[in-house]
């Protein structure tokens, strides 16, 4: 029997497949994070409605709509607010499937875990139930209504956040935080973190690929853990060295510890109009929700 045939039947081969799958998955995850960021920046450069607005106006609009969503206890009104975000996404040339997927893929997992117990523990009429001893187990109608409101509220908020991030370059979004009096040094740190996360993600991808290209045999779990620990240490060393070099580069361009930034924003008529229109819609939603249940 050839060695390859022996390998094909051995448990080691199965183990190798599993470990390679794990590595492939990690590599794919890192790569997709980078690709998604680049893709998001692409959307922010389109000539859509939201892309043309001043980031500060967009931030104001986002806050107004999120507050409206939080103060609204009416399911139909929340659905209406969600439809407004879908319309805004459409006007901003954000692909429908990308937008909807990005919002709804995470919600069942995060919001679902929070809301599931309340469906069963909220008192009220239970159309489907079964009895275990003295306990009646089943979803109650008030529980289901509460869960629907909660999930639609989360959906509106997440949709608004995604829309803001997708239609605004990250750099502009950070700078717009100045309008909320966020300290400049904090904004600089955030922007540098964003900048270097991608550099280190690329380094991680390179290391994974370099390892993959040299994988010619089975490695044990212990060896893999050792490699991962070594890679983490290596990346950490690189990040320390890079941080020293970056600081040198900042000093070389006259950095004295005081943070200054260039402001290119200008609120124009259309920005104010969009902002006041959104505040109007948000106020109307809060008012109307008292009558529509």
């Amino acid at each position, binding site marked *: 029997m050839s060695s390859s045939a022996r390998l094909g039947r051995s448990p080691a081969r199965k183990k190798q497949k599993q470990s390679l799958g794990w590595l492939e998955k990690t590599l794919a995850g890192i790569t997709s994070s980078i690709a998604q960021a680049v893709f998001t920046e692409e959307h922010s450069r389109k000539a859509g409605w939201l892309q043309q607005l001043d980031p500060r106006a967009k931030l104001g609009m986002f806050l107004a709509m999120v507050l409206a969503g939080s103060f609204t206890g009416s399911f139909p009104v929340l659905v209406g607010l969600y439809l407004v975000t879908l319309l805004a996404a459409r006007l901003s040339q954000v692909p429908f499937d990308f937008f909807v997927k990005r919002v709804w893929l995470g919600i069942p997992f995060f919001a679902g875990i929070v809301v599931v117990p309340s469906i069963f523990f909220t008192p009220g009429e239970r159309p489907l139930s079964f009895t275990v001893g003295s306990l009646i187990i089943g979803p109650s109608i008030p529980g289901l209504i509460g869960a629907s409101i909660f999930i639609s509220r989360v959906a509106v908020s997440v949709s608004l956040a995604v829309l803001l991030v997708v239609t605004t370059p990250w750099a502009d979004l950070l700078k717009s935080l100045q309008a909320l009096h966020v300290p400049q040094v904090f904004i600089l740190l955030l922007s540098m973190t964003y*900048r270097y996360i991608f550099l280190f993600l690329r380094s991680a991808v390179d290391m994974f690929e370099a390892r993959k290209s040299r994988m010619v045999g089975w490695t044990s779990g212990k060896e893999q853990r050792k490699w991962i620990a070594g890679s983490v240490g290596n990346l950490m060393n690189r990040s320390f060295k890079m941080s020293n070099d970056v600081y040198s580069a900042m000093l070389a361009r*006259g*950095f004295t510890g005081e943070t200054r930034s260039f402001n290119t924003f200008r609120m124009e008529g259309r920005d104010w109009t969009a902002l006041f229109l959104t505040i109007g819609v948000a106020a109307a939603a809060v008012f109307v929700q008292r009558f529509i249940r």
Partner: protein
Amino acid sequence: MSSDFSANRTEPVFQLKGVRYLYNGRQIALDGIDLEVGRGEQLALLGANGSGKSTLLKLLDGIFGPNSGTMRALGRDIAAVASGLDSFRFHREVGLVFQDPDVQLFSATVFDDVAFGPLQLGLSQAEVRQRCDEALEIMEITHLARRAPFELSGGEKKRAAIASVLSLGPEVILLDEPTAALDPRSKWLLVSLIQKLGQAGKTIITATHELEIVPLIASRVIVLGENRQVLADGPARQVLEDTDLLVKANLIHPELHYLGHFQPSMG
């Protein structure tokens, strides 16, 4: 722009005597460097990998001071500059382009990076805008201004890094391996830029081991040996024709270069 440097135009830009620098206080990076650079000189710093070129440029930029020896730059003691004294004004006059552009491009967009230096000078927004537009135009990357550095190619990053130094309008420009890993068009753009800056009277020191560009960008050459000392200092042609010296400095190899007809010039 008034400065000590402008006031003392006849004084050498850099004066180094017996400069020694140790990494982590142990490993020798530079050993007994004597060097004098005059105003408006275009100088190439040659040396194999690990010969101390980048370290010397960082010393010249006042990022750190020597362990021993004396070093003056633009009329100032470089050790004092490295400890922070007057470094703000010093860096208006001396700009360093780092070898790795990812080190230099730390902002979220190319424009923000180019604007970083002028903003530190406390200039008005209009003046910052003007300087940035000029620097981006010189480097032919105006169309990349709003792009994030992680989206750029290697050549684009290099050009953005140089623009971020040009926007400061320094009198002295230090370039660390500016043409490394660039395609021919980007390389030529940089060579012609260095020539233009030289013609404008800037003092330029370029660290490289690409011999073919040296006659185009420098009239004087300093060779750093693998012993971290100055091996030669002279006119570019004279140094580049000394094949024994170039072999000794590990800049050419007999198996790769036909030494009898070694032609370092591109044109």
